[in-house]
């Protein structure tokens, strides 16, 4: 699947396109198919996000997983600070990133 990610303008936080808006949780990422470029143009034009780009991902039984390690780390947070990730109470969360 193709998923779309970018950064929230105000906070800089990593966000994922859900089909109708942006989410902090990669598991809400929608398959944008061939529409990524079109969505980026519209959303960046509306100043909702910036630095947006399309990546390869996979829908697994555990959730949506970006293909590349860099995007998986973006999706979760720094692997060396589990307390600052999106799943601070889940010590196993780092395992799907690496």
């Amino acid at each position, binding site marked *: 699947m193709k998923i779309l990610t970018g950064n929230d303008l105000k*906070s800089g936080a990593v966000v994922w396109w859900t089909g109708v808006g942006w989410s902090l949780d990669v598991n809400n990422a929608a398959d944008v198919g061939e529409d990524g470029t079109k969505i980026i143009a519209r959303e960046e034009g509306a100043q909702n996000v910036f630095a947006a780009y399309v990546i390869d991902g996979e829908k697994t039984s555990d959730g949506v997983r970006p293909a590349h390690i860099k995007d998986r780390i973006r999706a979760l947070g720094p692997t*060396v600070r589990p307390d*600052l990730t999106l799943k601070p109470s889940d010590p196993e969360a780092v395992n799907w990133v690496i």
Partner: protein
Amino acid sequence: MYKYDQYDQQMVDTRVAEFRDQVRRRLAGELTEEQFRPLRLQNGLYLQLHAYMLRVAVPYGTLNSAQMTVLGDIADKYDRGYGHFTTRQNIQYNWIKLEDTPDILADLAKVEMHAIQTSGNCIRNISSDQYAGAAADELVDPRPYAELLRQWSSFHPEFLTLPRKFKIAVIASETDRAAMRLHDIGIKMVKNDAGEIGCQFYVGGGMGRTPMIGPMIKEFVPLDQLITYSEACLRVYNRYGRRDNKYKARIKILVHELGKDEYARQVEEEFAHLLSQGIEPPLAELERIKPYFDDPAFDTGASDDLDLSDSDFRVWVERNCHAHKQAGYTIATVSLKPIGGIPGDASADQIRLMAQLAKDYSFDELRVTHAQNIVFPHVKKADLYTLWQKLDEAGLGTANLDSVGDIIACPGLDYCSLANARSIPVAQKISERFGSAEKQAEIGELKLKISGCINACGHHHAGHIGILGVDKKGVENYQLLLGGCEGADTSLGKITGPGFDEDGIVDAVEKATGVYLANKQEGERFLDTYRRIGMDPFKEAIYG
């Protein structure tokens, strides 16, 4: 230390107001990211892997307690309770919100700090010896000259759009503690045969994808020509540095391609022209700056006696303290590398504690080192045990300076959008395996440096042992380098061979130290043994 005059303060305050308006326009949709990006970068605001990152300048690594306190407060108020001290003697915050940035810059301006020129193709923060003004072995305090260069390079209209970023270091000791020859310009304060103080210029050093050791291009520049000669070096680079290829745009490539003699000749030509223009600030300006760096009011009767009956304290003194020029005092380094910790990170509480301790025990002064540690430059030996106890209680008493646990590591793929591999977990694993006092004592001085990509922010080329993280078909892979050094005898590390995975690189480091321990002669450091026996025994042990 230096105090802003009305011009310094006005410039910084004006920039804060200007950026506040730029942020307002960006948030209101009046500026696109393309338009805004160069503006935020000029104010040290990057976009990193997870969020905006703000890099704050610490000129030549010197700061006072009030400034350090504000750095801790910013970590609490605007970030997530910590900051990261960098290999350029700066501090970075990893979780900054755009809308908060003008207020952060305003807070910084109140204590004479800013984030200007911590990004972009301009002259960056001037770095220096972290022991400046305190070391027993220095010729003069290099910081007045670094400050003069800071004033010259700040907002210099001709050098705000150079072909690439530009880094200058100034030292004044035979022992180079600032990696001077790995800078675009390295300046060493020297004395000539007539007994006059002047500047020796090394140009074209650097790390990154094409590491080079800067050659000396001018043996002696008189103090009243320092700025003119620096300007000539920059002008030749600005005119002929390559703008067509980002990877060949640093001055080291120009100096290498022209040859140092031809580059020096062109600089001389420009220098002669500039001398006729009279651009040098009057020496009176340097004389105005110098008193800001006068010695504090040392107790000239202070004793050199130290009670070392506490063995943990004794090890810390042996490892982390350095000879001071004033009898009865010492230079104490706080390691930000606890066993298994994140190199260079400090919590807001730790930052504020160090600020308070500097006020109580080091004449209100601290230094940030390029090895990502903090220095108390002027500690009376009579106060040292109390200082260490307070540091130790806060997790800041680790005794590992310049040993295998004192690892330089860039933020790597955990934070950096340019990185190819994570640096910090490798540093943590090495620190855990080698961090015990016994192991560190056995191995002795060993500078280990890790970068998560070829840009070499972790100085891997200059590590006795260097580690470079690369992306091998989407998987992190780590190359091992041996034999780098950043001191007076600067050398570049050589790659041992094929890379390793995360656990494999830690094993490889253990094998390399094993070769050292098996072959070392009396008094030899790891680097000395490597230089004597060469790469082959190490390769055989690592790959054999």
